[in-house]
């Protein structure tokens, strides 16, 4: 059922509406993200960036509108959509009682793709010590964010959806995110990122999408 291949990555949202707790967050939203593009979603607080990213990731059903991945409508294509998706939410999904290594192993077990590099190499890539047994709750917030990013270095996925990936990261951390995104775009992947801060990416890769214009 997985298209082994080369249908170029393409995420499309048509006439998407989002209603949360009786509040209309946005409606009639059209959006297309193609291979090699990194979309930066901006908007004021409460504009619906998190809601949009969660809908695009398939968490929840939109009040109206449809999503398409590589041409296939989403509810039918859910299985292989989820195989090609990596999601970073507000909370970095790091279990405090497990070590960094154990956390990463669990994340890999949940994915069904062959890994791109050994776990230790991924930890080094994001700037964490690869042989540390300490429970993750002893890491700083920035280190936990880096641990969450290690998944992105490790697991192959054509669609990255990241909600505020730069939270708690220092300047070097921001450089890490930019490097990861650049490599991802070069491989033909799509990324949708919500962030207040600017991202420095190669020309032609970075696209902007402002939610403030669609306020209901």
């Amino acid at each position: 059922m997985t298209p082994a291949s080369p249908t170029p990555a393409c995420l499309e949202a048509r006439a998407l509406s989002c209603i949360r707790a009786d509040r209309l967050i946005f409606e009639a939203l059209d959006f297309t993200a193609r291979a090699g593009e990194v979309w930066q979603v901006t908007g004021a607080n409460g504009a619906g960036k998190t809601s949009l990213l969660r809908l695009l990731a398939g968490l929840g059903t939109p009040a109206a509108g449809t999503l398409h991945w590589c041409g296939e409508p989403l509810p039918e294509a859910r299985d292989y959509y989820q195989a090609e998706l990596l999601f970073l939410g507000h909370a970095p999904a790091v279990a405090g009682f497990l070590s960094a290594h154990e956390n990463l192993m669990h994340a890999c077990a949940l994915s069904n793709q062959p890994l791109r590099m050994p776990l230790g190499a991924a930890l080094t890539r994001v700037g964490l010590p690869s042989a540390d047994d300490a429970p993750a709750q002893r890491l700083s917030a920035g280190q936990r964010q880096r641990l969450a990013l290690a998944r992105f270095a490790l697991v192959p996925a054509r669609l990255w959806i990241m909600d505020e990936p730069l939270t708690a990261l220092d300047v070097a951390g921001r450089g890490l995110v930019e490097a990861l995104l650049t490599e991802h775009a070069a491989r033909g992947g799509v990324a949708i990122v919500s962030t207040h801060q600017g991202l420095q990416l190669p020309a032609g890769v970075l696209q902007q999408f402002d939610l403030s214009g669609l306020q209901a």
Partner: protein
Amino acid sequence: MSALAAARSVLGRDLRRARRRPGDLAQPLIFFAVVVFLFPIAIGPQSELLRSLLPAMLWVAALLALVITLPDVFAADYADGSLEQLILSPQPLALLVLAKIAAQWLTGALPLIGMSAALGAVLGLEATVWRAVLLGLLLGTPVLSLVGGLASALAVGLRGGPLLLALLTLPLYIPVLIFGTSAARNAGLGLAVEAEMFFLAGLSVLALTLTPFAIAAALRARMG
């Protein structure tokens, strides 16, 4: 990685959490003991009456103590964002959920069964009744963990915590309670307990096949 490896990882993670936070395990056991000890205080220390009511007391206390453990099934994962990763995983969600419930049964129900065995023996339960209570709990607690897991998934992240969970689960727990205590009573009268045990086993098998899918649906409904 295969689906079974993913399920094993989920199970291992929850078991590791229980091992590294042993305090969490003790609370339901202490609650269980307190509830059981409230009854003699309320009823009075007449030993015959107490001994005949003991199986019922153990069952009720076990149900209530199990309900106490239910918020933890999904609450920690909800708080740190792991629940979304579980739902978004390409591995079958029903299988992952089954692994979580298995962990809850091992860390929540099994210690309670052990505690019932200990308290039953200490408080003078006769051997046949003691065996009937324990076997009933062993056969019935899988249903309780599964149905409890469903309620926990429906109520994840909501205020009202254990109270809402108690309201959702206890009506669904009643059949298990009826057959468990009926078996204990029959054992006390010297009658056979096969019928009740088969019924409990049947309920557990039914729950085992259907509930994981319901829990997966509940998680998807809530995390949207």
